[in-house]
């Protein structure tokens, strides 16, 4: 959370209201909800195993027991505690997700920003390279590589996912750099004799932070799902607990046919919830980057729709997902002016 806040906060902005605008964007309910869900899982992974000290691998005679006081999420076929596995497994799943996404984002940033800025032959080569990695289907590649790996612990899986997952970020970064490098302030920086590294790091990168973060979160989802898939196939270490490993054992232990939903459902649900929370944050960032999307919320119901589709807008405006989120533009614009811009069908942007 802090990373995003500082990332967005670093972007230099011309207008006085710029900072306010960023804070408002972070207050978007989508982002808040996303962060809240994510925080729960991160905290559970960090603190959980310390508080709930049951050994996830300890066998017991209480096999396939439903949720009870002794085992809040029941037990597996070998009597292991599901909650303990979930908490410890969360560590590995989140670790692989975040670390491999971080590595992939850095590779993508280097390739994309460098290619977009330097242009010419370098860009052509890097861009073809990026597109090749983008088109080659990842999971089969990851499966083939892991098939050869002598050890399949969390670290090697992390590296394999990072190596195969950077291309999307590179492509988006390159496009953004291409559009930024022609802006006046970059030309000005060049004219004052700033070096290429300084221009890239201080002038260009800060203005791409929002999409860097969005790309990072997207890669985290991808990495968590890929790791889960690999573990489920038995292609990562089966003795190291992760949500994917839990699903592997649950499937091998015929959890669902045995009626042990408490064994099979929670890991998948955790993956889905973490994925949704990251996607929600990404929605919020999208709205931040592209104000038109934000304007589609309650702040501006376009005239186009209101006039043409009376049937759809007769009902009072539904409580929108982003209730409580007032775009700063709206907050500081006199009502009359707002009405006028609405009549022009322009939204708030």
């Amino acid at each position, binding site marked *: 959370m802090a990373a995003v806040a500082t990332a967005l906060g670093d972007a230099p902005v011309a207008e006085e209201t710029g900072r306010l605008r960023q804070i408002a964007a972070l207050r978007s309910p989508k982002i808040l909800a996303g962060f809240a869900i994510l925080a729960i899982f991160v905290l559970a992974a960090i603190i959980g195993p310390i508080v709930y000290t049951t050994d996830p691998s300890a066998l017991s005679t209480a096999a396939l027991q439903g949720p009870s006081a002794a085992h809040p999420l029941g037990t597996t076929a070998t009597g292991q505690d599901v909650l303990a596995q979930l908490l410890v497994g969360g560590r590995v799943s989140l670790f692989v997700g975040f670390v491999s996404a971080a590595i992939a984002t850095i590779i993508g940033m280097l390739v994309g920003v460098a290619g977009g800025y330097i242009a010419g032959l370098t860009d052509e080569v890097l861009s073809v390279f990026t597109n090749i990695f983008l088109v080659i289907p990842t999971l089969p590649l990851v499966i083939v590589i892991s098939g050869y790996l002598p050890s399949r612990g969390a670290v090697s899986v992390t590296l394999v996912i990072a190596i195969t997952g950077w291309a999307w970020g590179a492509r988006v970064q390159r496009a953004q750099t291409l559009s930024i490098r022609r802006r006046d302030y970059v030309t000005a920086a060049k004219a004052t004799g700033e070096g290429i590294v300084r221009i890239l790091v201080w002038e260009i990168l800060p203005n791409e932070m929002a999409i860097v973060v969005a790309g990072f979160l997207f890669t985290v989802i991808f990495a968590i799902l890929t790791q889960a898939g690999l573990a489920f196939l038995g*292609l990562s270490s089966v003795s190291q607990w992760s949500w994917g490993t839990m699903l592997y054992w649950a499937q091998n232990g015929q959890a669902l046919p045995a009626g042990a939903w408490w064994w099979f459902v929670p890991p998948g649900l955790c993956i889905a919830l973490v994925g949704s929370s990251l996607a929600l944050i990404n929605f919020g960032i999208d709205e931040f980057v592209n104000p038109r999307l934000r304007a589609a919320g309650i702040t501006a119901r376009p005239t186009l729709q209101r006039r043409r589709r009376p049937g759809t807008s007769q009902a009072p405006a*539904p409580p929108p997902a982003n209730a409580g989120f007032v775009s700063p533009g709206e907050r500081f614009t006199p009502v009359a002016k707002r009405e006028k811009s609405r009549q022009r069908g322009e939204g708030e942007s």
Partner: protein
Amino acid sequence: MRFLIRRVSFYIVTAWAAVTLNFLIPRLMPGNPAQILLSRFQGRLSPNALRSLTTLFGLNSHASLGTQYLQYWSDLLRSNLGISFSYFPEPVSTVIGTSMWWTIVLIGVSTIIAFVLGTVAGVMIGWHRGSRLDTYLPSATTFLASVPYFWLGIITVYVFGSILHWFPPSGGYSLSTTVGFNGSFIASAAYHAVLPAVTIVVSSVAGWLIGMRNMMVTTLSEDYVVMAEAKGLRPRRIMYAYAARNAILPSLASFAMSLGFVVSGAILTEIVFSYPGIGYVLFLAVSNNDYPLMEGIFLVITLAVLIANLLADIAYLVVDPRTREDS
């Protein structure tokens, strides 16, 4: 035309890169698991099969990397992908040839359904932006998209296959039918494909839907849409001919990325459903350390994805007149 030529040459370069990657991976990996396997099969392999496996994995230490690479290509062009260990003694190309069509039909049909469904729904909720549906549908589909395919697949198998008995829980066709182009076989295959296809559609529809919705919203605030409205055109015409037609371009352009996702998910789905497609065979290959089969499948999947992308590019050509102008 120039656009198409550029794309085709890009795909050729990519295909070359994939082949080269396939050539390099076993040679770059620490240790050589293939060597161990090969010695296990030593007595059972014909000298010819042994030779092709040697070229495949670079076990022939006498030849230089360059010679090995040329040899590898010449084997490949004669579609000699080696002998499968797990389907011994069938050649890899035969194993892939029989399983490939299952996957192509399954993924092809479900991708088209998901694309059409997601795009149309995206156009709708983008048009009715700010409505109740627009508020809840993207969030709901996002949740479904974050669900691991295989997890959803297993639950579907359990609920609709094992409990309700609406659909067969596994396999690709009923064993009582004869494989071939006859009515009962096709009906049985279609019946078996329903559950996996639904799983793939449900998990992949969100990407299309949200992408299309966002582009639709962005496009609707363009001046030419306001202009079209001012001219008094029918809403339906504005919606489809003005907004949707422009909004669909990024969806088509990012087809590559999305298809990669779908293919990855579909592989896992096939495994869950024991569907006789290429994903399931890949799983068997990996669990049996069947390296030749693994490599062959990776190549075939990559080539298939490239062809699908080429088709998407041709669709792009049809939708976007700008790509045709410069010819």
